[in-house]
């Protein structure tokens, strides 16, 4: 399944809802989206992974790249994910220590940095 991206803002937070598969084929699309947001001054990003069916290390690389970019502007990148099969790759790679992972978009938006 292909990647779907939809973006909205809540206050100074930008929420990117991702659907489908984030892999070596689709990751460039997500990377561009994150680069665009940061270029346009969105430094507090919430990536909602609840609609994601598959995520591999290429997708992780893009999320790490996004994190680096927002940090360069003292921003934040938070994830929303409750799906066990997606959480698993964050856990085995130790990236749960790098990304704040929330159970809902509301929780992620409310979190202070």
């Amino acid at each position, binding site marked *: 399944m292909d990647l779907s991206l939809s973006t909205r803002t809540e206050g100074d937070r930008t929420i990117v809802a991702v659907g489908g598969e984030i892999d070596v084929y689709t990751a460039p699309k997500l*990377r561009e989206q994150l680069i665009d947001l940061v270029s346009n001054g969105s430094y507090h990003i919430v990536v909602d992974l609840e609609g994601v069916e*598959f995520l*591999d*290390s290429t997708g992780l690389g893009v999320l790490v790249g996004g994190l680096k970019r927002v940090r360069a502007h003292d921003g934040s990148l938070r994830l929303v994910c409750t799906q066990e099969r997606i959480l698993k790759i964050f856990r085995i790679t130790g990236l749960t220590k*790098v990304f704040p992972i929330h159970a809902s978009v509301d929780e992620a938006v409310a979190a202070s940095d």
Partner: protein
Amino acid sequence: MPTVRLQISATPAHVRTARLVATAVARRSGVADSALDEIRLAVGEACSRAVSLHEEFAPHEMITVLLEDEGKFVVTVRDLGPVGTESRHTDPLEGFADLPGPDQFLATYSDRMPTGFGLAVIGSLVDDVEIRAAGDGPGTLVRMTWPIGTALT
């Protein structure tokens, strides 16, 4: 339902073809449903690694994915890139211990995980993995084995 041999040109779209085929054949071979997500991810990582190597070193050669299901479900991914592009230190069975930690790669890398990361994911995920130089030519073999049914675990 013995063997499937899939060859794909070295392009990201066909990593999906490989995941699709491996997962479908695994399911029909009687691999436990609970292992299918693992197979999808591991085969995807092995093929993504092979595609990056081929894009750089062998863009016109095909990557081979062999599926066998006699007794166990075995997936072998073979690239034709130079062997040893990952440091021998990235022993996938060691998981991420030998890779730069998150702080380091946040400082060093951009948009892609360090070399060896995909193999480390495979090593952490799959109980039975073997990685070795193909020997009969260029390229590395990534061989991953899963039990079929439950009797053979």
